[in-house]
């Protein structure tokens, strides 16, 4: 009798497990805030019958999470295009994308081509583009517009105690460009890169007393700028545009040395279980009208061909104000980060943080 029950229970469990794998129609999406708005998720679920579980994160956490599970736990992730080859070589957390399952016609071709090239490891493509944007300077143009033209101007005594930036790698890269160096050119040569970074380190340490605080999250920065405690900061373009909606003096400005361009992608985690749902999601959100919804939620434009037509006029106007044509040409797109560079940057960031 007892044995019978145990057997039944075992069969039940096994069937439940089978059922799980057979109808793998739950898409576990690891993404950024705003990239999977509720209305888009609802439309997708209605159309395809799949369900979507959204986990919000950032580049580093995405990679750390996938590394911890060896690429499991999620079916689709969205790291930036420069953070794919390095972690893939080092940790093997992604699996190649079958580009034939993607409706390539929906993409802006140049962006698709560049991203695929940047995310190719050993002949396999690992990423396709989704959302792109830049980081540069968010400032109160009345208070700081005349002083701050580039990242290094954040160290100007005239704005002492009223500036902020993140203590993360984009700041290092941005300062390097503003100091007249080309860190991307030094990517392949660790020694040369170390040299660039040590100069940046000296500059950041010198600049430390000018900084009010190193911001950590987008909300924190918004609070600082909105309250007027910070008049200029290195930040994402969307942050500046959001603040601009409340206060026309505040906006995003492309720095003289060029804004830093990033592209967030779609990648398949190595142990993803529902690739079909993942491909369906990619093809779904790249439709121009859906992509426009994501632009409205995230504030950034997508790699969807023709989505501009659906975008809000106000956002377009802000974009054009921040990016005159020459500034667009001057955008520095992140090339793939070779594995191991983070160690050099990490040392710099630690020492800057520790400096008095």
């Amino acid at each position, binding site marked *: 009798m007892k044995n019978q029950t145990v057997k039944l229970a075992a069969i039940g469990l096994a069937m439940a497990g089978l059922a799980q794998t057979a109808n793998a129609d739950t898409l576990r999406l690891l993404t950024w805030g705003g990239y999977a708005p509720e209305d888009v998720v609802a439309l997708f679920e209605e159309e395809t019958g799949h369900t979507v579980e959204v986990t919000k994160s950032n580049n*580093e*956490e995405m*990679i*750390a999470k996938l*590394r911890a599970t060896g690429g499991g736990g999620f079916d689709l992730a969205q790291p930036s295009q420069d953070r794919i080859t390095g*972690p893939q*070589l*080092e*940790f*093997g957390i992604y699996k190649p994308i079958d580009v034939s399952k993607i409706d390539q016609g929906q993409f802006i071709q140049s962006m698709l081509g560049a991203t695929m090239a940047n995310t190719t490891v050993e002949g396999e493509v690992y990423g396709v583009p989704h959302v792109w944007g830049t980081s540069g300077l968010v400032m109160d143009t009345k208070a700081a517009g005349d002083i701050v033209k580039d990242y290094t101007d954040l160290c100007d005594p005239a704005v002492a*105690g009223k500036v902020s930036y993140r*203590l*993360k790698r984009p700041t290092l890269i941005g300062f390097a460009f503003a100091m007249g160096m080309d860190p991307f050119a030094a990517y392949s040569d660790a020694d040369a890169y170390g040299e660039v970074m040590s100069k940046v380190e000296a500059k950041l340490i010198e600049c*430390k007393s000018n*900084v*009010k*605080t*190193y911001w*950590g999250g987008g909300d924190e920065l918004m609070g600082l700028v909105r*309250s*007027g*405690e910070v008049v200029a900061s290195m930040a994402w373009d969307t942050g500046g545009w959001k603040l601009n909606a409340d206060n026309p003096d505040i906006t995003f400005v492309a720095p003289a040395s060029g804004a830093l361009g990033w592209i967030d992608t779609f990648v398949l985690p190595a142990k993803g279980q529902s690739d079909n749902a993942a491909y369906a999601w990619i093809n779904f959100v790249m439709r121009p009208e859906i992509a426009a919804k994501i632009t409205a939620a995230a504030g950034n434009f997508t790699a969807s061909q023709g989505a501009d037509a659906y975008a809000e006029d106000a956002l377009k106007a802000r974009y054009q104000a921040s990016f005159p044509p020459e500034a667009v040409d001057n955008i520095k797109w992140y090339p793939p980060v070779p*594995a*191991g560079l*983070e*160690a050099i*940057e*990490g040392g710099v*960031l*630690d*020492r800057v*943080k*520790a400096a008095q």
Partner: protein
Amino acid sequence: MQSGTRLGFYLLLTPLVLWLALLIVIPHIDMFLVSLRERVGVRQYETSFANYLTFFTEPLYIWTFVRTAVMSVLATIITLLIAFPVSLYIAKIARGRLGQVLFVLCLIPFYVSELVRTFGWMILLRETGLVSNLLQWAGLADQPVEMLYNDAAIMIGLVYTSMLFMVVPLVTTLESLDDSVIEAGYDLGGNGFSVLREIIIPHAAPGIVSGSIVVFMLSLGNYLTPTILGGKDSLWFTEMIYNQFIVRFNWELGAAFGFMLLILSSLIVWGMLKLTRQSLEETMG
């Protein structure tokens, strides 16, 4: 009967053993093994103590640890200095309902999450915050005062977060002190100071020590408060561990840091117990 009680004993012990093994021992062994890996190339690792060597050869890491430890000790002392009179008042002066109400008041901040509490402090201390405005309104400051992003702000946050963990053991031990023992202290010629020094503090010593250990470990292991309130100068050891794990993808060094934190903090606690001539058995007993 005999075997029945033995079975019961093992059944009761199982959850504890599972808890210890699955959630504490095994992860630590795994972490230790990770900390012994040295990255020599892409996906190539060797067993070595290189990560520990990094900790000891890079002054920055040692300095960060020392700073974290000193700040935590300081936070523990300040917490004790504030919590002791409060606990004495709750346990010995405000009896009955008032004592309970005060105790609950100490507890209330812990109904909200640590993040919310820390943001609360940000609202108070920031340049455009309440305290700054009050000071200006009172004429004590002629321009906005920034009280965030420095060590004092970290200290305020740590002490505030730790308060309850000091008050609870102190109130418990102080309540166990018979009032007549205090009265006997006065009756035999003692004044407030000597009664405090010779009777109340020695009696409360186990509570002081256990509270201090908890507060010290909590402060040392705190991540949110120093990072958020400390801003550009936070420099906290746990932040460094987080950075190694999450930002630098350097699990090996992060694991070594984690182990150093475990070892060094245990050493500090042991040293303090020796210094105050308390034993862990007394404190826990």
